């Protein structure tokens, strides 16, 4: 498990929809800090939160979050 890290497309998806972290946080029902830490990879969200974010963007969880192998 230690050889993998979670990568995400939140910043890209936000840019496509032209919304800020704060707006996304308000829609999802969390604080901006939470969105920021998930986006920068400092915090791994729960499955529930990951699904809620994917639903908001209208994509699958695996499109939003991908598991990448470390070099």
């Amino acid at each position, binding site marked *: 498990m230690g050889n993998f890290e979670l990568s995400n497309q939140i910043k890209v998806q936000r840019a496509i929809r032209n919304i800020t972290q*704060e707006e996304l946080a308000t829609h999802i029902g969390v*604080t901006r800090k*939470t969105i920021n830490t998930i986006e920068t990879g400092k*915090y791994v969200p*729960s499955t529930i939160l990951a699904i809620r974010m994917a639903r908001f963007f209208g994509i699958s969880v695996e499109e939003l979050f991908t598991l990448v192998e470390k070099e």
Partner: protein
Amino acid sequence: METSLIERLDKLRYNLLKWCTIGWGIWFGTFILKDLINSPAIIGGATWIGLLGWLIFIINLIKFLKLRRELRWDTKVKEALDDELQQLNWFKSSEIGYSSVIAVTALLFGLSQFISIPANLVTEIILYIGVLSGLIASLFYNRD
């Protein structure tokens, strides 16, 4: 863009916590200092500084509790403010506070084998370090 209500309340909560930490640090710090040093001049100065710290601590603690009380019925905002990252941060801060209490207790216990330390001073130091480390950890984890 206008700042959201959640964002404003989150900032407010962080500031209240920050001032509670400062207040606690000053108030209880001077309280311990008075027990350690028996100079009347220092005791006089420490009393006033301690009073200021106590005021800062109490005022911000009341504001903090009032904010929690006001949000009690607003489930949506309350849930957003106490989201999973916030809960994890509270848990990690409590863990640090608890670990500090154990560490300071062990340290003072070790010291007591060589020198005599008054029981009330030991209790005050454990309480001071335990609460302060928990509060500082909380500020650290919840920083922007």
